[in-house]
């Protein structure tokens, strides 16, 4: 597993302290980004990118922050609106000058770019008369409301195997956006492109590999966020078992429940180990992280999350069903993270993609 450097430990401690001490951050006007300026001041917005590329950290720092956000059940869309765009921009800014300025604005919190990942619905593009025409839908873009631009990939309408990356201002005329609240207290946008005509400046050519790599980083970030949430649910449950009394004794006196608590510990530890597998993949091959390992990480983390989530509720009993008790928020956060950017089935395919299909 990862041993944090002392600087990383300080980052972790300060992140935990900040998140624990602040008042509920969400305001009506800025929504999920209410505290974004504070995150910028704390240096969070550049923490996923190494210093040599203009940031303050790297994959481990990214995971430390994602994990702290997970443990706090914090609403900020750190992965879609910070990790994905900053990692992408840090790798493409060297070749495309305006992106350098954009990268700096994103890290300082002056501009918000939200990244989207392919789902069932995709976006297609055509090059027409020196411009680009877009058709399709982008769904489940967490933090779309409040972002200035969206970053996404699109497939060539004439040959879907050819893709490109686009960075589009939200104010593009004709771009339709609809918001929906999510179960875990965030916001999810759907962008519809109906023969939308945009400048070819929106296309960032030769950046597919950078986009793919940024997505792998963000997926490992999801796993880190899930590990953080799981840690909190596990500890909440352990504490509850010691406090709650029925039949004249604390629940922690009943052997059946002691064993279940032990099982949660095991799953939590395995989820941390799985996260280290994902982080190792990012560190060993930053340009093209091994998708098999990233997906194995998420697949294993999902398994732990299901175990820990359902055990946490069951061991708490009815109180866990109330919105007031914090457990439910963590449970719903785990569910939302599980389903975004590839569910178990999606990641399972990538784990066994290299499996030979067998002779005859």
């Amino acid at each position: 597993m990862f041993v944090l450097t002392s600087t990383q430990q300080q980052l972790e401690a300060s992140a935990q302290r900040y998140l624990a001490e602040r008042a509920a951050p969400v305001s009506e006007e800025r929504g999920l980004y209410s505290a974004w300026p504070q995150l910028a001041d704390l240096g969070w917005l550049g923490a996923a990118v190494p210093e040599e590329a203009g940031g303050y950290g790297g994959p481990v720092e990214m995971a430390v922050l994602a994990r702290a956000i997970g443990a706090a059940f914090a609403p900020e869309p750190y992965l879609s609106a910070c990790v994905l765009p900053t990692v992408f921009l840090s790798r493409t800014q060297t070749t495309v000058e305006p992106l350098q300025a954009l990268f700096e604005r994103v890290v300082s919190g002056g501009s918000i770019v939200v990244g989207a990942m392919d789902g069932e619905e995709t976006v297609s593009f055509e090059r027409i008369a020196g411009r680009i025409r877009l058709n399709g839908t982008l769904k489940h873009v967490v933090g779309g409301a409040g972002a200035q631009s969206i970053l996404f990939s699109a497939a060539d309408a004439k040959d879907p195997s050819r893709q490109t990356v686009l960075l589009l201002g939200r104010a593009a005329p004709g771009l339709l956006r609809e918001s929906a609240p999510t179960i875990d207290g965030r916001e999810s946008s759907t962008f519809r492109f109906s023969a939308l005509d945009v400048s070819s400046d929106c296309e960032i050519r030769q950046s597919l590999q950078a986009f793919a790599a940024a997505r792998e980083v963000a997926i490992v970030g999801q796993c880190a966020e899930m590990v953080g949430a799981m840690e909190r649910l596990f500890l909440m449950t352990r504490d509850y078992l010691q406090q709650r009394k029925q039949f004249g004794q604390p629940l922690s006196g009943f052997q059946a429940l002691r064993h279940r608590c032990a099982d949660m510990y095991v799953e939590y530890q395995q989820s941390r180990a799985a996260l280290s597998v994902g982080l190792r993949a990012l560190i060993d091959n930053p340009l093209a992280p091994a998708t098999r390992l990233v997906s194995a990480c998420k697949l294993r983390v999902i398994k732990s999350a299901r175990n820990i989530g359902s055990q946490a509720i069951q061991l708490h009993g009815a109180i866990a069903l109330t919105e007031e008790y914090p457990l439910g928020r963590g449970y719903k956060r785990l569910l939302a993270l599980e389903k975004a950017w590839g569910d178990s089935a999606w990641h399972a395919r990538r784990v066994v993609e290299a499996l030979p299909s067998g002779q005859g």
Partner: protein
Amino acid sequence: MADAAAAALNSFREESRAFIRAKLPPALAARARQGFHSSKADQEIWGRLLYARGWSAPAWPKEWGGAGWSAAQMQAFDEECYLAGAPELSWNGVRLVGPVIYTFGSEEQKQRFLEPILRWEMFWGQGFSEPGSGSDLASLKTQALSAGDDYVVNGSKIWMTDGHFADWLFCLVRTDASGRKQQGISFLLLDAKSPGVEIRPIRSIDNQHTLNQVFFTDVRVPKANRVGPEGAGWSYAKFLLANERTSSAEAPRCKFYLQRLHRLAQCVMRAGRPLAQDPLFRMRLAELEADLLALEASVLSVLEQNDTQADLMAQASMLKLVGSHLLQAMGQLMVDAIGPDATLLCAPPHEAEEQPSSVPSYVPGITSDYLYRRASTIYGGSAEIQRNLISSILLPAG
């Protein structure tokens, strides 16, 4: 089951189906199919339609306005209702307190309460659990102190489903704190509008308001509202649970889930093809169908046994354990089927006319119900309590 009995049950099913098809308003069915908790208005509509047919309390004896149906007929009717999209009706009046009143109540209580319950003109709340008494229900502390012809009630009940639309409450209260905890419990009926009764909403993680906490502060309740003698409350609670011995398996709800899964298999597209063609989905669905067939057979088997069966209680606990877990597994497959759409927050139909257009029509209610059903292994006796009951029969202490 003998051929003649099976044939009779089938023709009963046909009759039920025909009635429901003729009488269930389509708009009501469209709302109920989503899987959110039914509003009071929807329960009144459907409950009163059933009453008009003489079917609002079909398991009650005929002398009390029931149709005298067998448990097997009740089960079949419940299934047909679920499959047709009938709204779920609260169990509190017809299925829980009603039988206690007609079995153990005074003449006045029977005259006063049974007819309004039958007519769906009176809604009830169940006051059993307390903040300090969940699994250990017998440790309950809500106190009913004798004061002349009344009791003065103080304490609190929690997790009261539909308490906010209850006209009356049936509560387990402590009338005697001196002996064994089960012995000092009495069964008391309370007017929810009594001074000193405060009902506070509890928002649950499914984003709905169905649960409540009720506070009793010096509430005066006539002793005439006590059912049976003092100290009989615990046995009435056991009676009430025994009545619902097979329905606690919730097999009809599982059947509704299965129907929904079949629909999702056709509607949901994965990689350009319907989910019905996904081998992983097919495999999981097959296992759940097999589990449900076994559960249904299990329910029928328990229905056919008589009360002297030594391990009947263990079997009832088994049904609850299996049924509650099957519900959750089916709910899990529904959530997995809709993928990222499961993360969208949808309001129940009585709170929101429309969902955002990005929400496919088959989505609303799935996640909400999935979240609520985390409680299926907690309500009605948690999975741990059920295992205690089974093991105490298999492995008696001492």
